[in-house]
């Protein structure tokens, strides 16, 4: 156990990362005060159901909580809700709350998450233009997805496509406008995009690519969406899913180094002593690829929470888990282990027409990432093979009858070097 303090560990943000830090500190043996600040009212909740369960017909208004209601009080985790933090004073180690009161901290954890990027076009502030980030956003979209409504989704990423799938299921007429030439281009390869495009079209979603939105029009409320090629699309509701921005302003104003995200090391320490950051708001160097990245995922929020808790408590950190992500559209699951790069070698395993296949991404012959569609057979082995940096034989990978682990051709020379080095110590 490291030193205790009468000042609390203050956590700003009550999403997956913030709650995981609070819970992890307590179960890890931290006896001091923990204060969890939430700019929203209500109980901290799970994010994935907002674009999945909450938008399905007849879902009701309930959503899953991150911990049961009496958890926080029972663990002595103090909560401040509906109360944004105004500023941080790293000199005096205090946060300043909206009512002007100052709260001293022993350690400060910024888990402020990210926000939906706003459409940078005229008319983006019209009624009926929505984005999906919070529970309240989810409810607003749920109410808008009435049968017969003309829904225009801007952006064909995970969120946009999940909303589109839910909207057709609710009996809406749905058009997706995407600036790129295929769906989910940022996160997956052409074969996976093609599969999901076919799936969406078969269920009645209209997809328009190369569609740059220039303006939203309407009399107080949105009525149509204009694109740069002179077309217009009638709309009762517009849902924009064009990415997120890290909520880093609080950190920046306090002198914490940021660069499209709060910069953190492997223990989630920022450049300012006593201040940590975790979750969507952070940017860090991947221990697997060496790339600088932000990851919008629960897996990252939990992993970073664990890393920083271990740093505060002086406990042994867990081996980092390879990043992973999932989406479900029209009942079909896409689950990804690792982060692909557009230059990776793309190998399709199995026949997409069957609705169940994988795509393997090799980087310099090593397994970098796997997408599994309609099944999870390759997901778990991939999660182990990727961090091991193993070389795979492309001709074996191509054969879905060969288990992914049996396509391994040899050890990564890097791990052999590390083992030799370890033996010398």
């Amino acid at each position: 156990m490291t030193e205790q303090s009468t000042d609390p560990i203050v956590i700003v943000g009550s999403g997956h990362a913030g709650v995981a830090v609070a819970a992890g500190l307590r179960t890890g043996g931290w006896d001091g005060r923990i204060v969890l600040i939430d700019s929203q009212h209500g109980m901290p909740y799970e994010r994935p159901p907002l674009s999945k369960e909450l938008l399905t017909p007849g879902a009701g208004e309930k959503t899953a909580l991150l911990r049961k209601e009496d958890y926080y009080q029972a663990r002595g985790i103090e909560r401040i809700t509906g109360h944004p933090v105004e500023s941080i004073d790293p000199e005096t180690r205090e946060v300043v709350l909206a009512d002007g009161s100052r709260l001293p901290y022993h350690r400060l954890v910024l888990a402020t998450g990210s926000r939906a990027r706003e459409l940078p076009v005229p008319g983006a502030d019209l009624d009926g233009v929505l984005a999906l980030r919070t529970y309240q956003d989810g409810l607003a979209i749920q109410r808008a997805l009435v049968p017969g409504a003309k829904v225009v989704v801007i952006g064909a990423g995970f969120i946009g496509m999940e909303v589109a799938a839910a909207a057709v299921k609710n009996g809406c007429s749905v058009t997706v406008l995407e600036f790129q030439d295929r769906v989910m281009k940022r996160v997956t390869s052409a074969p996976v995009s093609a599969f999901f495009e076919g799936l969406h079209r078969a269920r009645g979603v209209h997809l328009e690519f190369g569609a740059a939105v220039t303006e939203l029009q309407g009399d107080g409320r949105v009525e149509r969406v204009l694109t740069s090629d002179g077309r217009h699309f009638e709309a009762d509701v517009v849902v924009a899913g064009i990415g997120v921005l890290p909520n880093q302003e609080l950190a920046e104003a306090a002198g914490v180094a940021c660069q499209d995200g709060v910069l953190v090391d492997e223990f989630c320490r920022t450049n300012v002593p006593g201040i940590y950051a975790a979750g969507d708001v952070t940017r860090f160097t991947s221990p697997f690829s060496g790339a600088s990245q932000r990851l919008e995922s629960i897996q990252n929020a939990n992993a970073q929470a664990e890393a920083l808790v271990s740093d505060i408590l002086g406990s042994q950190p867990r081996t980092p888990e390879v990043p992973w992500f999932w989406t479900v559209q029209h009942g079909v699951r896409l689950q990804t282990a690792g982060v692909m790069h557009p230059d990776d070698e793309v190998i399709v395993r199995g026949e997409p027409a069957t609705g169940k296949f994988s795509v393997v991404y090799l980087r310099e012959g090593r397994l970098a990432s796997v997408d599994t569609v309609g099944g999870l057979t390759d997901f778990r082995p991939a999660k182990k093979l990727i961090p091991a940096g193993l070389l795979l034989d492309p001709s074996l990978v191509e054969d879905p009858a060969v288990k992914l682990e049996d396509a391994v051709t040899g050890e990564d020379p890097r791990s052999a070097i590390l083992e030799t080095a370890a033996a010398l110590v």
Partner: protein
Amino acid sequence: MSTNTLTVVDREGQQHAVAWEPEQSLMEALRDNDLPVLASCGGTASCATCHVFLDGDIVTSLGERSEDEAELLVDAEGFSEDCSRLSCQVTFEDRLNGMTVTLAPEE
């Protein structure tokens, strides 16, 4: 419905009496009682971090695993066809009061 009491055996073999409240999945009961299940996916059968072993008869009575659950479990460490379940897929039932839940090894 009243709350169930579970006996949970952790990875060190220690036993814990754990309250399982109606409307919680088994995973939520474990997580909310500070047992070390990571529950990386929040209970959507997308990871296998809430893998547990239950009595074989109970597993049989719970019915078939979903395809996703089956595929995640089959390669999980310590997988047992008879006893393995993802605890996020086990819903509260009065008749499960008093059952023993053993946490599977961590990956």
